């Protein structure tokens, strides 16, 4: 341990940490650009220089390690003067186009100039000019004149994605970042350079001119695109997602997420979202009210139960839906109806997991909650029935009614499965948009996408993580757990879960591995199940 002083504040810190890390512990901000926790230290922006007693020069806080007895000043006269000076340097060739820059409002340069800089510039010469905008790849644009050459993006492509598309070209004030000739910034992690860029040089094509950032509502959630469950922030406005960005979580995704997740949320705003319950009338699907829908499902299920017995009803859980929704399906089937036939749909896996040199991995399993859905459908001591077995029994007529949780309209069923499903007397499907499943359903109940719902996903590591609703549901669509509860009640069951939290509490009390977890206790980073 080293005993040090920062701006008069005494603290004990681990030997060998840097001044910047120590100041972070002390809660003192040292402005910096090129330093990033997950990247190698370059020490080139010279923003983080601080004064240390008995050292003749100002030293970079990002690369200078603390020593016992060190007396550090981050706001001395020398430091304050220099900060003004270096910020002036950053701005002399900067276009100062904040009014049309997407980064404004969350721009580090803007913040630092506001906090530490000078209101007037002494620079009266001609600025250096560059090609204003370059397209680096399918998702990233580069505004060269705004670039402060911190090199984070280059180090990201070297150290994290390992794809090495970017470099600095030319020298001195003519330096500019560009892709190597013949290359494009098209790796699966390319969107991260936009987050990494402290200024508005790296810009997301998808977010370009979409909104000033201060109008955005920010919601912490979990990416639904693969089983890794990257922690994300959904930035929305007027009930529309405008962008999705990663939230740091060292246990899951570090500071990163892949482009599939970052830009893969367009399904939320599909034109054909289901907004009310539908009933099949001949070849047509006709909108009905929730009351009608619940009554219809209840009547059809009761009819089948009385004609063929409880075991003629089966339910299919979904790896695309949160634990709570799948758990209530189990409650409906096992407790209310009394059928053991709860199976889990598992889409065929295509492709391999993608591991980057830094260890960041895009999982091959493209469902967000396979692990959790498996936990919710497994009953201790009972051999779970497989999806395949359910289909076989539908074909043989043993199973007459099928309750299917969808949640993934993109899934494509093999022809023979579709033919089998047609044979069921009664098929009810939950989903947020039309799919191959809803095509054959007798009743379709409109549910939500990840962006509108609350609940938990358990990722491939067995980490339970919370989703929070960023958007209001379209039309009359409802979360699956609410729908299931209403059906359960209609069927005469005593089911009363006023909130997702209550469902989770019961999960924590019932399902092994979840014992000891609490919904609130999951926090923003999630918790590993036991």
């Amino acid at each position: 341990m080293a005993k040090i002083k920062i701006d008069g504040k005494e603290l004990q810190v681990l030997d060998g940490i840097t001044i910047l890390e120590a100041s972070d512990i002390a809660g003192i901000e040292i402005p910096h650009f090129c330093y990033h926790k997950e990247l190698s230290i370059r020490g080139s922006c010279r923003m983080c220089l601080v004064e240390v007693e008995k050292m003749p020069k100002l030293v970079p806080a990002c690369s200078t390690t603390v020593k016992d007895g060190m007396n550090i000043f981050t706001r001395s006269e020398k430091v304050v003067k220099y900060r003004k000076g270096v910020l002036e340097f950053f701005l002399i060739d900067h276009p100062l186009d904040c009014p049309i820059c997407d980064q404004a409002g969350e721009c580090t340069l803007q913040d630092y100039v506001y906090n530490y800089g000078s209101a007037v510039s002494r620079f009266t010469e001609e600025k250096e000019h560059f090609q204003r905008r370059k397209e680096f790849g399918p998702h990233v644009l580069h505004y060269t004149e705004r670039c402060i050459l911190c090199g984070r993006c280059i180090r990201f492509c070297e150290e994290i994605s390992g794809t090495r598309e970017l470099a600095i070209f030319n020298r001195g004030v003519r330096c500019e970042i560009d892709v190597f000739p013949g290359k494009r910034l098209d790796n699966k992690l390319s969107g991260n350079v936009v987050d990494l860029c402290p200024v508005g040089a790296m810009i997301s094509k998808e977010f370009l001119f979409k909104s000033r950032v201060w109008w955005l509502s920010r919601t912490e959630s979990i990416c639904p695109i693969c089983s890794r469950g990257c922690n994300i922030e959904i930035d929305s406005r007027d009930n529309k997602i405008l962008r999705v960005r990663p939230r740091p979580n060292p246990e899951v995704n570090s500071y990163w997420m892949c482009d599939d997740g970052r830009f893969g949320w367009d399904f939320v705003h599909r034109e054909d979202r289901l907004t009310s319950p539908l009933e099949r009338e001949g070849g047509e699907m006709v909108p009905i009210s929730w009351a009608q829908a619940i009554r219809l499902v209840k009547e059809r299920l009761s009819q089948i139960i009385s004609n063929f017995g409880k075991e003629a009803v089966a339910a299919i859980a979904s790896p695309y839906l949160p634990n709570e929704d799948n758990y209530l399906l189990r409650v409906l089937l096992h407790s209310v109806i009394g059928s053991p036939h709860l199976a889990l749909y598992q889409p065929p896996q295509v492709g391999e997991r993608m591991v980057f040199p830094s260890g960041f991995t895009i999982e091959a399993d493209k469902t967000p909650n396979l692990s959790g859905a498996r936990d919710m459908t497994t009953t201790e001591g009972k051999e779970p029935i497989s999806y395949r077995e359910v289909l076989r029994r539908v074909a043989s007529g043993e199973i007459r009614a099928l309750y299917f949780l969808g949640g993934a309209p993109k899934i494509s069923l093999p022809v023979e499965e579709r033919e089998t499903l047609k044979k069921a007397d009664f098929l009810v499907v939950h989903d947020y948009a039309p799919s191959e499943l809803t095509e054959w359903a007798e009743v379709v109940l409109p549910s939500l996408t990840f962006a509108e719902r609350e609940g938990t996903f358990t990722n491939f590591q067995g980490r339970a993580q919370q989703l929070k609703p960023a958007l209001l549901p379209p039309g009359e669509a409802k979360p699956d757990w609410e729908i299931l509860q209403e059906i359960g009640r209609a069927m005469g069951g005593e089911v009363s879960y006023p909130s997702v939290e209550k469902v989770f509490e019961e999960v924590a009390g019932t399902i092994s591995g979840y014992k000891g977890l609490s919904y609130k206790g999951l926090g923003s980073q999630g918790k590993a199940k036991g």
Partner: protein
Amino acid sequence: MEEKILLKYIDIPDIQKMEVYQKHDGYQAVAKALGEHKPGDIIELVKTSGLRGRGGAGFPAGLKWSFVPKDSDKPVYLCCNADEGEPGTFKDHLLMEKNPHQLIEGIIISAYAVNCHQAYIYIRGEFYQPRKVLEQAIKEAYEHNYLGKDILGQGFHLDLSLHVGAGSYIAGEETGLLESLEGKRAEPRLKPPFPAAVGLFKGPTVINNVETLSNVPHIILRGPEWFKGFGTEKSTGTKLFGLSGHINKPGVYELPMGILLKELIYQYGGGIIGGRKLKAVIPGGSSTPVLTADEIDVAMDFESLQAAGTMLGSAGVIVMDETTCMVDALANLTRFYAHESCGQCTPCREGVSWMEKIVRRIEQGKGRKGDLELLLDICDNISFKTLCPMGDAALGPVVSFITKFRSEFEDHIVQGRCPIKKDKSIKGRG
């Protein structure tokens, strides 16, 4: 005529050829070093000699070598910095072109001293002729088993590679050189760690200038005491001075450290062209602070020049006479530094280019009141705050020119034109 060390055989015809070099004590120092000394002894001998780095910083060579860890699990590298790029400096070019074996001999002995088996000469890309000469000399050295396996049967092996530089001033900064040698952009590295601990390919690395290494065989052959007989107490040996500018006899002169600048200019350099008046001298390459005509009674050694507020640097003496416009000269120098800034660190990249623009504007008669204060303040914001010494190299001339020739700058600003009657004919002399 003083005794010479480095240039002693410079006029012998074909001295760059092995058989001629061998007739003039050639490779005897290698034989002596490998045959009679342990590596540690060589470091001690060089330490005792007081030999200091000739690249500009003047760091004691023996001490530098002693920083190389003895127990490294990575190979040790020796890099000869032959990227001579400081304006006003042209001594290494001469040493390599005229006497390449002297340098190779120095490299072999130095490599032996630090237990290095792979050495590099990083030669400036523009040095075509020295490169051709060195290529041939290295080939000869391999043929005579001064390089390669089991050198002279003494069990020491060394490979020497000639690497052609990628053409930038900053590749001459030692860590910029290492980056360039590794095939990357010549961008100086953050220090610490210093190259002696973590250098080329992360191995311990010694980087020495051509002139420094060329001195080593002589120290081994004739002893450190003999070497200390030249120069001053703390700046031992001789020094190659490059004389250029408004001088009658420009060229490279080998003289003992401590010679008076005045003597160098008037006695050896033959005085100022056309008998004109001396105005200013840059004593150690373009980055060293300028001296006025009144300040040339200074001894050319590390300590005396430091006391005079400047540096010996690479000992490139740039002489400027009364027809020189100091603003124009500074604009020219600053343009060089702005052009050569690698651009990775902010104060150097932005500040130096800004200074160039201001100085050029003053020279064009568009200077404004406050420009000089602004320039000095920019210098203050660069000074000792950049990642490598380049920032300070760039502001050396700015601060000293403005401080020492302030009235000339003010005249430009007040009169709105350049008041100096320039004579730029020197450019045409080739």
